[in-house]
């Protein structure tokens, strides 16, 4: 009797343990790590999307980790030494070469095909941006590019037609001149105009790395590029480059429509100091919330003939990792995110997927038209392994120094250009 009882208890115990372990394994959620560099209001939008996905898919846990892009990429590089590589890494179009060039990203062509995505479902520029060296390394989430934010109230007050917003360089300067008013009501070029006593400026541009992006677009508008086809040297047409920088410098010092020493064009625009300002769609939520005037957007001015606007785009990549279950879950998540990217549109970014842009949800968002119209004309920075060093947005990077010399210091354009080319070539030359 005793042995029988013990045996029965033993069997029951084993069954119970087996049941517990089995159910634990069955319920163990697949966890994927999703890293991105969004730290502003767009972080909240992404977080909502991620939570939405988890609610719909209870067997999956998505850990969203965000920190500013530069430290994010530092962390990503060191993660290969610590072994905590993320499953999905967001980056920009021009960052792909940096990491694919170090063999840290997996090609995704097969996954794209399996998920049923095709090139014609996305904006062509966005789709093309996911390739490097002929291999597709990412899926396109969105694009963001420059456009011109316009204060319609000031437009009307200056006697301009708000239905005919400027799109060419000449139209822009003409409008900005009428919109630049000094304390005596005079405009630039008129007798008695005092540039030190201006109460409203016509146009605002940034003097940081974005000024280099304006230059880059103006180069593309002349059919020129900055680097040679191999991406290892600067090979820019100096005549066209100087013309591009000169146009920007003239806005401040010759046409006097841009306030000298401007540091934050959008801030100046939203507080009513400038009537128009160039910035990206990431400012749209702030415009919606803080602008106390009627506003709209128009495309970045076409100055030299061929329309071109600087832009970039967020893409989703799969870092090299040996975990098929997580990879599967990651692709499933990315697929869902792309199909639901209309929600991402509230962050200001323009969804790459055509279907997302055609939803009522996206169409009801204000100010997006000019950005959507710019999609076919977006030019990206060169996607080379050294992009983040040559075109670094920080500190003494040659593009920032050049932009500030031209716009803040009124340095001779040829001199600033030479420094830019030398600086960029120096970085490209070091192994």
């Amino acid at each position, binding site marked *: 009797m005793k042995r029988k009882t013990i045996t029965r208890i033993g069997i029951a115990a084993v069954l119970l343990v087996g049941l517990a372990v089995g159910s634990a394994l069955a319920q163990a959620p697949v966890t994927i790590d999703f890293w991105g560099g969004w730290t502003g209001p767009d972080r909240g939008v992404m977080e909502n999307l991620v939570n939405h996905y988890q609610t719909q898919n209870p067997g999956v846990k998505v850990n969203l980790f965000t920190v500013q892009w*530069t430290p994010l990429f*530092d962390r990503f*590089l*060191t993660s*290969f030494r610590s072994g905590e590589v993320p499953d999905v890494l967001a980056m920009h179009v021009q960052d792909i070469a940096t990491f694919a060039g*170090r063999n*840290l990203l997996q090609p995704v062509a097969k996954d794209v095909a399996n998920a049923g995505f095709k090139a014609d479902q996305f904006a062509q520029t966005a789709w093309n941006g996911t390739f490097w060296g002929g291999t597709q390394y990412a899926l396109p989430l969105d694009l963001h590019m420059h456009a011109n934010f316009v204060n319609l109230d000031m437009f009307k007050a200056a006697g301009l037609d708000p239905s005919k917003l400027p799109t060419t360089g000449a139209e822009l300067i003409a409008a900005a001149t009428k919109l630049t008013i000094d304390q005596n009501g005079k405009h630039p070029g008129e007798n008695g105009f005092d540039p030190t006593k201006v109460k409203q400026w016509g146009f605002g541009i940034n*003097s*940081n790395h974005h000024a280099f992006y304006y230059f880059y677009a103006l180069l593309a508008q002349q059919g020129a590029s900055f680097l040679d086809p191999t991406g290892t040297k600067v090979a820019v047409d100096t005549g066209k480059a100087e013309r591009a920088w000169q146009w920007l410098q003239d806005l401040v010092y010759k046409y006097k429509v841009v*306030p*000298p*020493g*401007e*540091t*934050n064009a959008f*801030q*100046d625009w939203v*507080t009513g*100091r400038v009537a128009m300002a160039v910035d990206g769609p990431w400012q749209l939520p702030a415009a919606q919330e803080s602008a106390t005037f009627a506003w709209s957007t128009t495309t970045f001015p076409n100055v030299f003939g061929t329309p071109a606007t600087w832009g970039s785009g967020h893409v989703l990549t799969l870092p090299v990792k040996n975990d098929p279950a997580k990879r599967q879950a990651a692709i499933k998540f990315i697929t869902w995110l792309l199909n639901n990217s209309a929600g991402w549109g509230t962050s200001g970014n323009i969804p790459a997927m055509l279907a997302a842009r055609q939803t009522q949800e996206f169409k009801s968002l204000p100010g997006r038209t000019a950005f959507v119209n710019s999609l076919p004309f977006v030019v990206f920075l060169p996607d080379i392994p050294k992009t*983040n*060093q040559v075109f*670094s947005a*920080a*500190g*003494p*990077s040659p593009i*920032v*120094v050049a932009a*500030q*010399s031209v716009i*803040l*210091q009124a340095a001779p354009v040829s001199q600033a250009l030479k420094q830019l080319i030398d600086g960029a070539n120096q*970085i490209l030359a*070091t*192994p």
Partner: protein
Amino acid sequence: MAENAATSTRLALRRGASSRWYGGATPWLFLAPFLAAFVLFRLGPVIGGFFISLTRWSIVGSPTWVGLANYRALLRDPLFHTSLVNTLFFVLLTVPAMVALSLGLALLVNMRLAPRIFARTSIFLPYVVMAAVVGVIWNWMLDSNFGLVNYALKLVGLGPFRWLTDFKLAMPAVAGVTIWWTVGFNMIIYLAGLQDVPRELEEAAMIDGAGPLAVLRHVTLPMLTPTTFVVLMLTTINAAQVFDQIYVMTGGGPGTSTLTLVQYLFYQAFQSFNLGYGSAIAYFVFLLLAVFGIIQLRLVHQQVTS
């Protein structure tokens, strides 16, 4: 008195065999946690950093030995020269002002005037604020268009000044912010030093007919020499290593007018992924400060012995 101490120690040591063992290892056991942390996080990286400076390394992958190539490259690097000149300029702008101003403030606060506690607190309070916060707030205050500083100046008919976007004004602006931020700390050190100046000496000088300025020059200041030495050393070392507020306020700009040594180091090591080169810059700063420290020590030694 010393002999008694020695005798009693010998007696204590002989009293118990266990106490001899106690005396030997116990201090080390107490120090062990601190020493471990110190070696791991301070000494180790300092030595490791020197070896990194002899390599070329970009985080991913292993370092490649290049010997003194990084140091040779430093000598030819125009941006490095710019950062060195800018750093020296910053040191010249801040150190004399910091030492003189903090001494003046300490003397003022030390006088038994009515608002001394309020003054002392409000002068020191900025030091408690974090560098990033200081940078962000002053960015707004110094903005050319909507900053409070330009607004205040406009009320008296001055300006507007492009504090952070004019190539010539940016470094003085950052220096000004730094002085505002850290003068309180130096003042506290001077206040402590002033308490050590014997009142009898000052009173004796006054009885002998010395006016307050003469007392200051011939009694107070010489007595403050060790304090001045400490303040000068600390201020110079901090000024040579300035990074936080410049990173937040100007990022080294406009152009390269506020690019300092540590700023350039950060750019090279963590934004351009040239760890070896960044390390070499760090060691150069170390050498610079070591030389300066030795010069200072010699000067103080001279003054003390003369």
